[in-house]
């Protein structure tokens, strides 16, 4: 499945993008570290960073456990005052047939707590998901810095 909905927006500034494959549990740790670095680049607060890294961890684990592996694109986009970290998780797994159920707290097909998707949605400022059964799933999330 191609991540059309999830392509990061182009923006000016010192933007960067990095793709990390998600094949093993160690890759999940790598994703967490890279997201933390990206959040530091946009000057995010500690709590905002923790939220985003935790969401990334949940989504990476979903990609691994339910999507049979995949990859994540980590991008820093936007201009000086409004910079964003965007994450696009892509897998070619079985996909999600019942989206509303998958986004419900406590619903799980993999023996977990079922907090992955619903939890990640609560932790991110932007959350977007597209899935085609038999083709795969793309999840795009974003977080940004608040300027008072």
């Amino acid at each position, binding site marked *: 499945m191609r991540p059309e909905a999830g392509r990061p927006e182009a923006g000016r500034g010192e933007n960067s993008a990095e793709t990390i494959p998600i094949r093993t549990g160690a890759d999940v740790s790598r994703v967490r570290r890279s997201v933390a670095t990206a959040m530091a680049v946009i000057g995010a607060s500690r709590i905002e960073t923790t939220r985003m890294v935790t969401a990334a961890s949940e989504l990476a*684990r979903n990609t691994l456990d339910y999507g049979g592996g995949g990859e994540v694109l980590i991008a820093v986009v936007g201009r000086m005052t409004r910079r964003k970290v965007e994450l696009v998780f892509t897998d070619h797994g079985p996909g999600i047939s019942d989206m509303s159920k998958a986004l419900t707290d406590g619903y799980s097909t993999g023996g*977990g707590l079922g907090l992955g998707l619903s*939890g990640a949605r609560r932790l991110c400022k932007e959350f977007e998901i597209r899935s085609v059964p038999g083709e795969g799933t793309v999840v795009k999330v974003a977080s940004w810095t608040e300027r008072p």
Partner: protein
Amino acid sequence: MTHFLEPNRIPIFQIGDCLLLTIQVDLEDRMIMTLKDDLAERIAKTHAKGVLIDISALDVVDSFIGRMLANISAIARILDAATVIVGMRPAVAITLVELGMSLQGVRTALDVDRGMELIRRESSEGAERLHEA
């Protein structure tokens, strides 16, 4: 048996009748499975009354690690030891709540000292109850 020098293994220390483990690294899934096995063995061997898990160095606790902490606590309870999670950071606590994890049934304390206090208090209360009965 020492776990100290083995890489990718979280060391477990014994202080009196408590076991203390400090989680300092970005946890990888394999280490967590090893930890559960190690800890269950140590509790059985030492007859520890309590297990203190210090997570003050952890930046991130996701639902997987949260579940692991709840699991450890449940296993310890069956082996008659109380588990106290100590030193959770504010940002981690907020995130766990937003994630929807309340870690029900898991006891918490501000730091290792307070956690030890909690375990001592509870085990002496337990002993009193036993004495009265």
